[in-house]
Protein backbone atom coordinates (compact mmCIF):
# COMPACT_ATOMS: atom_id res chain seq x y z
CA UNK A 1 0.00 0.00 0.00
CA UNK A 2 1.34 3.39 -0.90
CA UNK A 3 1.50 6.18 1.63
CA UNK A 4 -1.16 8.87 1.35
CA UNK A 5 0.02 11.92 -0.58
CA UNK A 6 1.44 14.56 1.78
CA UNK A 7 -0.97 17.37 2.53
CA UNK A 8 -0.08 20.40 0.43
CA UNK A 9 1.25 23.33 2.45
CA UNK A 10 -1.23 25.68 0.83
CA UNK A 11 -4.40 25.83 -1.24
CA UNK A 12 -3.47 25.12 -4.84
CA UNK A 13 -5.07 26.35 -8.05
CA UNK A 14 -6.97 24.12 -10.41
CA UNK A 15 -4.84 23.74 -13.52
CA UNK A 16 -6.54 24.57 -16.81
CA UNK A 17 -5.49 25.14 -20.42
CA UNK A 18 -5.34 28.85 -19.65
CA UNK A 19 -3.13 28.81 -16.57
CA UNK A 20 -0.84 25.77 -16.95
CA UNK A 21 2.04 27.85 -18.33
CA UNK A 22 2.05 30.01 -15.21
CA UNK A 23 1.61 27.45 -12.46
CA UNK A 24 3.52 24.54 -14.01
CA UNK A 25 5.99 26.47 -16.16
CA UNK A 26 8.50 26.68 -13.33
CA UNK A 27 9.42 23.02 -13.76
CA UNK A 28 12.35 24.13 -15.94
CA UNK A 29 13.31 26.87 -13.48
CA UNK A 30 11.76 29.74 -15.43
CA UNK A 31 8.76 31.91 -14.67
CA UNK A 32 6.42 32.13 -17.67
CA UNK A 33 4.16 35.05 -18.54
CA UNK A 34 1.87 35.57 -21.52
CA UNK A 35 3.36 37.88 -24.13
CA UNK A 36 2.11 39.57 -27.28
CA UNK A 37 4.17 38.33 -30.22
CA UNK A 38 3.23 41.39 -32.26
CA UNK A 39 4.26 44.24 -29.96
CA UNK A 40 6.07 42.51 -27.08
CA UNK A 41 3.67 43.58 -24.32
CA UNK A 42 3.58 41.24 -21.32
CA UNK A 43 0.06 40.27 -20.18
CA UNK A 44 -1.03 38.96 -16.77
CA UNK A 45 -3.36 37.35 -15.97
CA UNK A 46 -4.45 35.52 -19.13
CA UNK A 47 -6.25 37.55 -21.80
CA UNK A 48 -7.13 36.54 -25.35
CA UNK A 49 -5.97 39.80 -26.95
CA UNK A 50 -3.07 42.13 -26.32
CA UNK A 51 -4.31 45.17 -24.37
CA UNK A 52 -1.84 47.40 -26.25
CA UNK A 53 -2.27 46.42 -29.91
CA UNK A 54 -5.26 44.02 -29.75
CA UNK A 55 -3.28 41.29 -31.50
CA UNK A 56 -4.48 37.72 -30.98
CA UNK A 57 -0.92 36.40 -31.18
CA UNK A 58 -0.33 35.90 -27.47
CA UNK A 59 1.76 33.06 -26.01
CA UNK A 60 3.72 32.31 -22.84
CA UNK A 61 7.40 33.19 -22.73
CA UNK A 62 10.00 32.96 -19.96
CA UNK A 63 10.83 36.11 -18.03
CA UNK A 64 13.91 36.98 -16.00
CA UNK A 65 12.22 36.23 -12.71
CA UNK A 66 13.69 39.42 -11.26
CA UNK A 67 11.71 42.30 -9.86
CA UNK A 68 11.15 44.64 -6.97
CA UNK A 69 8.75 44.71 -4.01
CA UNK A 70 6.16 47.48 -4.54
CA UNK A 71 3.85 46.66 -1.62
CA UNK A 72 3.74 44.14 1.19
CA UNK A 73 1.99 43.23 4.40
CA UNK A 74 3.12 41.26 7.41
CA UNK A 75 0.08 39.15 8.15
CA UNK A 76 -0.36 38.29 11.82
CA UNK A 77 -3.93 37.02 11.91
CA UNK A 78 -4.13 33.21 11.75
CA UNK A 79 -6.73 32.95 8.95
CA UNK A 80 -5.74 29.46 7.93
CA UNK A 81 -5.34 26.53 10.32
CA UNK A 82 -1.84 25.02 10.39
CA UNK A 83 -0.25 28.00 8.65
CA UNK A 84 2.24 29.68 11.00
CA UNK A 85 2.07 33.45 11.48
CA UNK A 86 3.45 35.99 10.94
CA UNK A 87 4.16 35.71 7.23
CA UNK A 88 4.73 38.17 4.41
CA UNK A 89 2.41 38.65 1.45
CA UNK A 90 4.05 40.90 -1.11
CA UNK A 91 3.53 42.37 -4.56
CA UNK A 92 6.45 41.93 -6.92
CA UNK A 93 6.71 44.15 -9.97
CA UNK A 94 8.69 42.24 -12.58
CA UNK A 95 11.52 44.13 -14.28
CA UNK A 96 10.13 43.43 -17.75
CA UNK A 97 7.20 45.84 -17.47
CA UNK A 98 5.85 48.43 -15.02
CA UNK A 99 2.36 46.97 -14.66
CA UNK A 100 3.45 43.32 -14.49
CA UNK A 101 2.76 42.46 -10.87
CA UNK A 102 2.45 39.19 -8.96
CA UNK A 103 1.29 38.50 -5.43
CA UNK A 104 3.70 36.22 -3.61
CA UNK A 105 5.20 35.02 -0.33
CA UNK A 106 8.82 35.41 0.75
CA UNK A 107 9.50 32.50 3.12
CA UNK A 108 13.29 32.61 2.68
CA UNK A 109 13.64 36.30 3.55
CA UNK A 110 13.67 37.49 7.18
CA UNK A 111 10.52 39.53 7.74
CA UNK A 112 12.42 42.59 8.97
CA UNK A 113 14.34 42.73 5.68
CA UNK A 114 11.22 42.99 3.52
CA UNK A 115 10.62 46.56 2.33
CA UNK A 116 9.19 48.48 -0.59
CA UNK A 117 11.97 48.75 -3.16
CA UNK A 118 13.69 45.46 -2.24
CA UNK A 119 15.14 43.71 -5.33
CA UNK A 120 13.93 40.09 -5.52
CA UNK A 121 14.21 36.98 -7.69
CA UNK A 122 11.89 34.04 -8.21
CA UNK A 123 12.23 30.49 -6.92
CA UNK A 124 9.74 27.65 -7.12
CA UNK A 125 8.02 25.47 -4.55
CA UNK A 126 7.09 22.16 -6.18
CA UNK A 127 3.66 20.69 -5.35
CA UNK A 128 3.20 17.84 -7.85
CA UNK A 129 2.91 19.42 -11.33
CA UNK A 130 2.52 22.83 -9.83
CA UNK A 131 5.68 24.88 -9.32
CA UNK A 132 4.49 27.76 -7.21
CA UNK A 133 6.44 30.97 -7.89
CA UNK A 134 7.83 32.50 -4.68
CA UNK A 135 10.40 35.26 -4.29
CA UNK A 136 13.54 35.94 -2.24
CA UNK A 137 16.10 38.70 -1.92
CA UNK A 138 18.04 39.05 -5.19
Amino acid at each position, binding site marked *: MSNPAPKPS*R*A*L*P*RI*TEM*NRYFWCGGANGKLHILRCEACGTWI*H*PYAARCPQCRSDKVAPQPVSGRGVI*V*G*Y*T*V*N*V*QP*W*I*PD*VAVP*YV*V*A*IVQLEEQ*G*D*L*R*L*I*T*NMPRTPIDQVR*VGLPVKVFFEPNGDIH*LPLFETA
Partner: protein
Amino acid sequence: MITYGEKNTAITGIGQSEIFRKPQILPFELAVRACELAIADAGLRPEDIDGLACWPNVPRGTVSGSGAAAISDIANSLDLKLNWWSGAENAAQLSPIMEAIAAISAGYATHVLCWRSLGERWAPSYGSAAAEAGQALASATSWLEFLLPYQAPSASIWTALHASAHMERYGITREQMSAIPLVQRRNAGLNPKAIYREPITIDEYMSSRMITTPFCLLDCDIPCDGATAVIVSRLDAARDLKQTPVRIEAVGAGSYDRMDTWVSRHDFPRMAMHDAAKMMWSRTDLRPSDVDTAHLYDGFSWLAMSWLEALGLCGEGESGAFIEGGERISLTGELPINTNGGQLSEGRMHGFGHLHEAVLQLRGQAGARQVAGVKVSAVGNGGGSLGGAVLLRQDD
Protein backbone atom coordinates in the same frame (compact mmCIF):
# COMPACT_ATOMS: atom_id res chain seq x y z
CA MET B 1 -28.05 65.58 -25.71
CA ILE B 2 -27.59 62.94 -23.03
CA THR B 3 -30.16 62.86 -20.26
CA TYR B 4 -28.72 61.14 -17.22
CA GLY B 5 -31.36 58.87 -15.72
CA GLU B 6 -30.52 59.67 -12.11
CA LYS B 7 -31.66 63.30 -12.53
CA ASN B 8 -35.19 61.96 -12.75
CA THR B 9 -35.00 59.93 -9.53
CA ALA B 10 -34.91 60.51 -5.79
CA ILE B 11 -34.54 58.58 -2.58
CA THR B 12 -37.92 58.66 -0.87
CA GLY B 13 -37.62 56.16 1.94
CA ILE B 14 -34.96 54.66 4.18
CA GLY B 15 -35.10 51.96 6.82
CA GLN B 16 -32.61 50.20 9.01
CA SER B 17 -32.93 47.31 11.41
CA GLU B 18 -31.21 46.98 14.75
CA ILE B 19 -27.51 46.12 14.41
CA PHE B 20 -26.01 43.26 16.40
CA ARG B 21 -22.41 42.19 16.88
CA LYS B 22 -23.54 38.76 18.09
CA PRO B 23 -26.62 36.97 16.76
CA GLN B 24 -29.84 37.94 18.54
CA ILE B 25 -32.60 38.16 15.97
CA LEU B 26 -32.87 36.02 12.84
CA PRO B 27 -31.02 37.99 10.12
CA PHE B 28 -33.82 37.21 7.66
CA GLU B 29 -36.22 39.00 10.01
CA LEU B 30 -33.86 41.99 10.16
CA ALA B 31 -33.85 42.21 6.36
CA VAL B 32 -37.64 42.18 6.19
CA ARG B 33 -37.86 44.77 8.97
CA ALA B 34 -35.50 47.17 7.19
CA CYS B 35 -37.62 46.92 4.03
CA GLU B 36 -40.87 47.48 5.95
CA LEU B 37 -39.34 50.49 7.70
CA ALA B 38 -38.23 52.03 4.40
CA ILE B 39 -41.69 51.58 2.87
CA ALA B 40 -43.34 53.15 5.92
CA ASP B 41 -40.77 55.96 6.02
CA ALA B 42 -41.70 56.91 2.46
CA GLY B 43 -45.40 56.80 3.27
CA LEU B 44 -45.86 54.01 0.76
CA ARG B 45 -47.53 50.62 1.08
CA PRO B 46 -46.02 47.30 -0.03
CA GLU B 47 -48.39 47.26 -3.00
CA ASP B 48 -46.78 50.48 -4.28
CA ILE B 49 -43.40 48.79 -4.64
CA ASP B 50 -43.03 47.57 -8.22
CA GLY B 51 -39.27 47.05 -8.39
CA LEU B 52 -36.75 45.24 -6.21
CA ALA B 53 -32.95 45.21 -6.29
CA CYS B 54 -30.15 43.96 -4.07
CA TRP B 55 -26.47 43.02 -4.25
CA PRO B 56 -25.31 40.38 -3.97
CA ASN B 57 -28.32 38.20 -4.69
CA VAL B 58 -26.95 34.83 -3.70
CA PRO B 59 -28.70 32.22 -1.59
CA ARG B 60 -28.43 33.29 2.01
CA GLY B 61 -25.47 32.05 3.95
CA THR B 62 -23.63 30.47 1.06
CA VAL B 63 -20.54 32.65 0.80
CA SER B 64 -18.75 35.14 2.98
CA GLY B 65 -20.73 38.36 3.15
CA SER B 66 -23.76 37.02 1.31
CA GLY B 67 -27.13 38.56 2.06
CA ALA B 68 -29.53 37.48 4.76
CA ALA B 69 -32.48 37.55 2.35
CA ALA B 70 -32.54 37.16 -1.42
CA ILE B 71 -34.85 38.83 -3.96
CA SER B 72 -37.50 36.13 -3.73
CA ASP B 73 -37.33 36.14 0.08
CA ILE B 74 -38.28 39.83 0.27
CA ALA B 75 -40.81 39.58 -2.56
CA ASN B 76 -42.60 36.72 -0.81
CA SER B 77 -42.36 38.04 2.75
CA LEU B 78 -43.90 41.37 1.71
CA ASP B 79 -46.16 39.86 -0.98
CA LEU B 80 -44.86 42.33 -3.56
CA LYS B 81 -46.28 42.69 -7.07
CA LEU B 82 -43.14 43.28 -9.09
CA ASN B 83 -42.77 44.55 -12.62
CA TRP B 84 -39.00 44.25 -12.40
CA TRP B 85 -36.24 43.00 -10.16
CA SER B 86 -32.47 42.68 -10.25
CA GLY B 87 -29.78 40.92 -8.29
CA ALA B 88 -27.18 41.70 -10.89
CA GLU B 89 -23.55 40.92 -10.18
CA ASN B 90 -22.03 44.26 -11.01
CA ALA B 91 -20.35 47.19 -9.33
CA ALA B 92 -20.80 46.18 -5.73
CA GLN B 93 -22.63 47.93 -2.93
CA LEU B 94 -24.25 50.72 -4.92
CA SER B 95 -25.23 48.63 -7.91
CA PRO B 96 -28.87 48.22 -6.75
CA ILE B 97 -29.19 52.02 -6.85
CA MET B 98 -27.80 52.17 -10.39
CA GLU B 99 -30.03 49.29 -11.43
CA ALA B 100 -33.05 51.04 -9.93
CA ILE B 101 -32.25 54.23 -11.84
CA ALA B 102 -32.01 52.26 -15.07
CA ALA B 103 -35.32 50.49 -14.41
CA ILE B 104 -37.09 53.76 -13.61
CA SER B 105 -35.62 55.37 -16.73
CA ALA B 106 -36.89 52.46 -18.81
CA GLY B 107 -40.34 52.75 -17.31
CA TYR B 108 -40.23 49.32 -15.73
CA ALA B 109 -40.82 50.58 -12.20
CA THR B 110 -41.83 53.65 -10.20
CA HIS B 111 -40.74 52.78 -6.65
CA VAL B 112 -37.76 50.41 -6.36
CA LEU B 113 -36.92 48.90 -3.00
CA CYS B 114 -33.17 48.32 -2.61
CA TRP B 115 -31.52 46.69 0.38
CA ARG B 116 -28.41 45.10 1.80
CA SER B 117 -28.63 42.62 4.65
CA LEU B 118 -25.90 40.83 6.55
CA GLY B 119 -26.30 37.55 8.36
CA GLU B 120 -23.02 37.08 10.12
CA ARG B 121 -24.12 33.87 11.84
CA TRP B 122 -24.67 32.22 8.46
CA ALA B 123 -21.83 33.69 6.50
CA PRO B 124 -19.00 35.10 8.59
CA SER B 125 -17.18 37.87 6.77
CA TYR B 126 -13.78 36.87 8.03
CA GLY B 127 -13.74 33.65 10.01
CA SER B 128 -14.71 31.36 7.17
CA ALA B 129 -12.18 32.76 4.76
CA ALA B 130 -9.85 29.80 5.03
CA ALA B 131 -12.57 27.23 4.55
CA GLU B 132 -13.80 29.11 1.51
CA ALA B 133 -10.33 29.35 0.07
CA GLY B 134 -10.36 25.66 -0.76
CA GLN B 135 -13.86 25.85 -2.22
CA ALA B 136 -13.07 28.86 -4.36
CA LEU B 137 -9.89 27.34 -5.70
CA ALA B 138 -11.64 24.17 -6.75
CA SER B 139 -13.34 26.25 -9.40
CA ALA B 140 -11.17 29.35 -9.50
CA THR B 141 -11.43 31.19 -12.75
CA SER B 142 -10.87 34.59 -11.25
CA TRP B 143 -8.10 36.58 -9.67
CA LEU B 144 -8.57 34.55 -6.47
CA GLU B 145 -6.46 31.95 -8.20
CA PHE B 146 -3.50 34.29 -7.75
CA LEU B 147 -4.32 35.24 -4.14
CA LEU B 148 -5.39 32.12 -2.29
CA PRO B 149 -2.27 29.99 -2.89
CA TYR B 150 -0.30 32.77 -1.22
CA GLN B 151 -2.18 32.48 2.10
CA ALA B 152 -4.06 35.68 1.26
CA PRO B 153 -7.74 34.78 1.82
CA SER B 154 -8.78 38.09 3.42
CA ALA B 155 -9.62 41.47 1.89
CA SER B 156 -7.59 42.97 4.74
CA ILE B 157 -4.46 41.54 3.11
CA TRP B 158 -5.42 42.64 -0.40
CA THR B 159 -6.15 46.15 0.84
CA ALA B 160 -3.00 46.27 3.00
CA LEU B 161 -0.89 45.60 -0.10
CA HIS B 162 -2.27 48.83 -1.59
CA ALA B 163 -2.13 50.78 1.66
CA SER B 164 1.52 49.91 2.24
CA ALA B 165 2.49 51.02 -1.27
CA HIS B 166 0.47 54.24 -1.01
CA MET B 167 1.61 55.14 2.50
CA GLU B 168 5.26 54.44 1.62
CA ARG B 169 5.07 56.55 -1.53
CA TYR B 170 3.54 59.56 0.18
CA GLY B 171 5.06 59.23 3.65
CA ILE B 172 1.72 58.62 5.35
CA THR B 173 1.91 57.26 8.91
CA ARG B 174 -0.29 55.03 11.03
CA GLU B 175 -0.65 57.94 13.46
CA GLN B 176 -2.24 59.94 10.63
CA MET B 177 -4.45 57.01 9.64
CA SER B 178 -5.67 56.68 13.23
CA ALA B 179 -7.82 59.79 12.72
CA ILE B 180 -10.29 57.65 10.74
CA PRO B 181 -11.16 55.16 13.54
CA LEU B 182 -10.81 57.76 16.31
CA VAL B 183 -13.09 60.39 14.74
CA GLN B 184 -15.61 57.80 13.66
CA ARG B 185 -15.76 56.36 17.17
CA ARG B 186 -16.54 59.82 18.53
CA ASN B 187 -19.36 60.08 15.98
CA ALA B 188 -20.62 56.64 16.97
CA GLY B 189 -21.01 57.93 20.53
CA LEU B 190 -23.91 60.00 19.13
CA ASN B 191 -25.44 57.05 17.28
CA PRO B 192 -27.55 54.83 19.55
CA LYS B 193 -27.44 52.01 17.00
CA ALA B 194 -23.66 51.83 16.78
CA ILE B 195 -22.09 48.62 18.09
CA TYR B 196 -19.08 50.37 19.66
CA ARG B 197 -19.66 53.81 21.20
CA GLU B 198 -16.86 54.28 23.75
CA PRO B 199 -14.14 56.68 22.58
CA ILE B 200 -10.74 55.25 21.70
CA THR B 201 -7.44 57.01 22.32
CA ILE B 202 -4.38 57.20 20.13
CA ASP B 203 -2.53 55.05 22.69
CA GLU B 204 -5.22 52.37 22.47
CA TYR B 205 -4.97 52.52 18.70
CA MET B 206 -1.18 52.23 18.60
CA SER B 207 -1.22 49.29 21.01
CA SER B 208 -4.14 47.48 19.39
CA ARG B 209 -3.17 44.07 18.09
CA MET B 210 -2.00 43.90 14.50
CA ILE B 211 -4.09 42.03 11.94
CA THR B 212 -1.97 42.56 8.85
CA THR B 213 0.35 45.56 8.59
CA PRO B 214 -0.48 48.45 8.50
CA PHE B 215 -3.92 47.47 9.81
CA CYS B 216 -4.56 46.80 13.48
CA LEU B 217 -7.84 45.50 14.85
CA LEU B 218 -9.25 49.04 15.12
CA ASP B 219 -8.64 49.59 11.38
CA CYS B 220 -10.98 46.72 10.49
CA ASP B 221 -14.76 47.03 10.32
CA ILE B 222 -17.09 45.07 12.58
CA PRO B 223 -18.92 42.06 11.20
CA CYS B 224 -22.55 42.22 12.28
CA ASP B 225 -26.13 41.19 11.71
CA GLY B 226 -28.32 43.94 10.30
CA ALA B 227 -30.05 45.33 7.24
CA THR B 228 -30.60 48.66 5.53
CA ALA B 229 -33.16 49.50 2.84
CA VAL B 230 -33.56 52.46 0.52
CA ILE B 231 -36.38 53.30 -1.88
CA VAL B 232 -35.51 54.92 -5.20
CA SER B 233 -38.52 56.57 -6.85
CA ARG B 234 -39.27 58.37 -10.09
CA LEU B 235 -39.02 62.07 -9.30
CA ASP B 236 -42.57 63.00 -10.26
CA ALA B 237 -43.88 60.24 -7.99
CA ALA B 238 -41.55 61.28 -5.16
CA ARG B 239 -42.71 64.77 -4.36
CA ASP B 240 -46.07 64.04 -2.75
CA LEU B 241 -44.79 61.35 -0.39
CA LYS B 242 -44.17 61.58 3.34
CA GLN B 243 -40.54 62.73 3.25
CA THR B 244 -38.86 65.51 1.34
CA PRO B 245 -37.13 63.61 -1.46
CA VAL B 246 -33.34 63.44 -1.60
CA ARG B 247 -32.18 63.90 -5.17
CA ILE B 248 -29.71 61.60 -6.85
CA GLU B 249 -27.43 64.08 -8.59
CA ALA B 250 -24.92 61.67 -10.10
CA VAL B 251 -23.76 58.07 -9.96
CA GLY B 252 -20.63 56.26 -11.06
CA ALA B 253 -19.33 52.71 -11.09
CA GLY B 254 -16.68 52.76 -13.76
CA SER B 255 -14.11 50.03 -14.29
CA TYR B 256 -11.48 51.19 -16.74
CA ASP B 257 -8.40 49.12 -16.06
CA ARG B 258 -7.82 45.39 -15.51
CA MET B 259 -11.13 44.44 -13.99
CA ASP B 260 -10.97 42.06 -11.06
CA THR B 261 -7.19 41.89 -10.83
CA TRP B 262 -6.67 44.19 -7.82
CA VAL B 263 -2.93 44.76 -8.32
CA SER B 264 -2.54 45.05 -12.10
CA ARG B 265 -3.93 48.52 -12.71
CA HIS B 266 -1.50 50.80 -14.52
CA ASP B 267 -2.06 53.35 -11.76
CA PHE B 268 -1.60 50.94 -8.81
CA PRO B 269 -2.14 51.49 -5.88
CA ARG B 270 -5.24 53.31 -7.07
CA MET B 271 -8.38 51.20 -7.16
CA ALA B 272 -11.59 50.95 -9.20
CA MET B 273 -13.01 53.64 -6.89
CA HIS B 274 -11.01 56.17 -8.90
CA ASP B 275 -12.92 55.16 -12.04
CA ALA B 276 -16.24 55.28 -10.19
CA ALA B 277 -15.49 58.79 -8.91
CA LYS B 278 -14.39 59.97 -12.35
CA MET B 279 -17.62 58.73 -13.91
CA MET B 280 -19.71 60.31 -11.16
CA TRP B 281 -18.13 63.76 -11.54
CA SER B 282 -18.58 63.56 -15.32
CA ARG B 283 -22.37 63.51 -14.80
CA THR B 284 -22.80 66.67 -12.74
CA ASP B 285 -21.88 70.35 -12.65
CA LEU B 286 -21.25 70.12 -8.92
CA ARG B 287 -17.62 69.91 -7.82
CA PRO B 288 -15.77 68.33 -4.89
CA SER B 289 -15.81 71.71 -3.10
CA ASP B 290 -19.63 71.51 -3.02
CA VAL B 291 -19.61 68.38 -0.83
CA ASP B 292 -20.81 69.03 2.74
CA THR B 293 -20.51 65.51 4.17
CA ALA B 294 -18.79 62.40 2.83
CA HIS B 295 -19.75 58.82 3.61
CA LEU B 296 -16.81 56.69 2.63
CA TYR B 297 -16.42 52.95 2.61
CA ASP B 298 -14.32 51.91 5.58
CA GLY B 299 -13.95 48.17 5.51
CA PHE B 300 -10.43 49.18 6.52
CA SER B 301 -9.40 52.69 7.62
CA TRP B 302 -7.18 53.30 4.63
CA LEU B 303 -10.06 52.76 2.19
CA ALA B 304 -11.75 55.91 3.49
CA MET B 305 -8.49 57.80 2.88
CA SER B 306 -8.27 56.40 -0.62
CA TRP B 307 -11.88 57.47 -1.26
CA LEU B 308 -11.03 61.03 -0.12
CA GLU B 309 -8.37 61.12 -2.83
CA ALA B 310 -10.44 59.29 -5.45
CA LEU B 311 -13.33 61.73 -5.07
CA GLY B 312 -10.99 64.71 -5.24
CA LEU B 313 -11.94 65.80 -1.72
CA CYS B 314 -8.21 66.13 -1.11
CA GLY B 315 -5.23 65.87 -3.43
CA GLU B 316 -3.46 62.71 -4.58
CA GLY B 317 -1.28 61.44 -1.74
CA GLU B 318 -2.55 64.15 0.60
CA SER B 319 -5.11 62.17 2.59
CA GLY B 320 -2.70 61.60 5.49
CA ALA B 321 -2.10 65.31 6.02
CA PHE B 322 -5.78 66.07 5.31
CA ILE B 323 -7.09 63.89 8.14
CA GLU B 324 -4.18 64.33 10.57
CA GLY B 325 -5.44 65.01 14.07
CA GLY B 326 -9.03 64.49 12.90
CA GLU B 327 -10.26 68.08 13.23
CA ARG B 328 -11.03 68.60 9.56
CA ILE B 329 -13.13 65.44 9.22
CA SER B 330 -14.96 65.69 12.56
CA LEU B 331 -18.63 66.71 12.90
CA THR B 332 -17.68 70.38 13.23
CA GLY B 333 -14.84 70.30 10.71
CA GLU B 334 -14.80 71.49 7.12
CA LEU B 335 -15.60 68.01 5.75
CA PRO B 336 -17.31 65.69 8.24
CA ILE B 337 -17.00 62.05 7.20
CA ASN B 338 -18.77 58.89 8.33
CA THR B 339 -20.94 60.78 10.77
CA ASN B 340 -22.68 57.62 11.99
CA GLY B 341 -19.42 56.00 13.07
CA GLY B 342 -19.08 54.09 9.83
CA GLN B 343 -18.45 50.41 9.53
CA LEU B 344 -15.54 50.69 11.99
CA SER B 345 -17.94 51.58 14.83
CA GLU B 346 -21.57 51.30 13.77
CA GLY B 347 -21.04 47.93 12.12
CA ARG B 348 -20.37 46.44 8.73
CA MET B 349 -23.62 47.40 7.02
CA HIS B 350 -21.68 47.03 3.80
CA GLY B 351 -22.08 50.39 2.16
CA PHE B 352 -25.81 50.80 2.71
CA GLY B 353 -25.13 52.18 6.19
CA HIS B 354 -23.26 55.05 4.52
CA LEU B 355 -26.12 55.63 2.07
CA HIS B 356 -28.66 55.65 4.92
CA GLU B 357 -26.61 58.16 6.91
CA ALA B 358 -26.17 60.49 3.92
CA VAL B 359 -29.95 60.62 3.48
CA LEU B 360 -30.46 61.36 7.20
CA GLN B 361 -27.94 64.23 7.03
CA LEU B 362 -29.56 65.72 3.91
CA ARG B 363 -33.00 65.50 5.53
CA GLY B 364 -31.73 67.07 8.75
CA GLN B 365 -32.78 63.95 10.67
CA ALA B 366 -29.41 62.84 12.04
CA GLY B 367 -30.23 63.89 15.59
CA ALA B 368 -27.31 64.63 17.92
CA ARG B 369 -24.82 64.04 15.10
CA GLN B 370 -26.56 66.32 12.57
CA VAL B 371 -24.15 68.50 10.64
CA ALA B 372 -25.42 72.04 10.07
CA GLY B 373 -26.52 73.07 6.59
CA VAL B 374 -25.91 69.86 4.63
CA LYS B 375 -26.96 70.35 1.00
CA VAL B 376 -24.71 67.89 -0.86
CA SER B 377 -23.37 64.54 0.33
CA ALA B 378 -21.05 62.12 -1.42
CA VAL B 379 -21.16 58.37 -0.87
CA GLY B 380 -18.27 56.17 -1.96
CA ASN B 381 -18.64 52.44 -1.57
CA GLY B 382 -16.37 49.52 -2.22
CA GLY B 383 -12.68 48.86 -2.53
CA GLY B 384 -10.25 46.99 -4.71
CA SER B 385 -11.67 45.93 -8.04
CA LEU B 386 -15.18 47.19 -7.25
CA GLY B 387 -16.26 50.74 -6.60
CA GLY B 388 -19.44 52.78 -6.74
CA ALA B 389 -20.08 56.44 -6.02
CA VAL B 390 -23.24 58.48 -5.68
CA LEU B 391 -23.74 62.19 -5.15
CA LEU B 392 -26.91 63.14 -3.28
CA ARG B 393 -28.39 66.59 -2.80
CA GLN B 394 -31.36 68.38 -1.37
CA ASP B 395 -34.35 68.87 -3.66
CA ASP B 396 -34.71 72.22 -5.41
